[in-house]
């Protein structure tokens, strides 16, 4: 069990790192874009994707 926890913790640290805001923001940007694409707002998704990525970066730095 300890090995499983350590294994899980290693991958969490490896992928998420020291700012969970980046992981949530990165995945959230694509999730939001996907919703817009399915709502036929492809152009809006094209602009919103980089905007959300920038917002994620700014938020993670404000918490630093």
């Amino acid at each position, binding site marked *: 069990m300890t090995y499983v926890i350590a294994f899980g913790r290693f991958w969490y640290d490896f992928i998420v790192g020291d700012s969970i805001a980046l992981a949530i923001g990165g995945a959230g940007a694509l999730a939001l874009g996907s919703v817009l694409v399915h709502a036929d707002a*492809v152009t809006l998704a094209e602009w919103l994707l980089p905007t959300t990525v920038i917002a994620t970066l*700014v938020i993670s730095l404000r918490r*630093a």
Partner: protein
Amino acid sequence: MSHEIALVVVAVFLASVVEAVEALTIVLAVALTNGWRTALLGTALASLALALVVLALGPALVRVIPIEGLQVLIGVLLLVFGLQWLRKAIMRSAGVKAKHDEAAIFEEEVALLSAAAATPSRDDIDWTGFVVSFKGVFLEGLEVAFIVLTFAANRENALGWSALGAVLAFALVAMVGVVVHKPLTRVPENTIKFTVGLMLVAFGTFWGGEGIGVEWSFGDWTILMLVGLYTSVAWLLVTYLKRGVASMPALTAEATS
């Protein structure tokens, strides 16, 4: 070679240079404390393990996950990795976080290994040193392996180009390491990390967007435009953070010490 593939090779090469420099510091510390046989055995087995990871996961990823899902997964991974690299590089450039000091890390590793060495010998394998060398190369290389895989999985026949960037970087750093025989403190690690972070975030946005069905108005040129946009934002953030640091003398002293 298309400009997209060229950018992939450059991004993987630069990412690999940074990780290779960090791995070299650890390998050198082991070599000079526990002997070259120990250091090189750890390095060789870690390199083999990394090659197996790439060879096992690369084709499997492409076969198991449909291309649209794969692009989204790649986009998320590149965005998360890239944002992590970029965030740290911005903080280091602004003086909020101390810069990576290879000389200090080297001294620390040598001190730890010297203290742990029960029977110092130049001829036999020191297993503590072996583990340190193996872990150092494997963990630094794992991030590169993931970057190689994510770039390779997104385009047909890209694995070779992607891996080429990594192999060239590791070979170059190893050769320079053999020649200078000490940690590579002059490599502008933060500048390289900054560049790689920007490229990973740009590729992550572009490919992730393609995966969810975004049709980029400017095609492949969007990648360069995204790099330009993110560079401008990062520069503004560094300038803004520098002002904050300048108004906090204690933090400035700590960050530059």
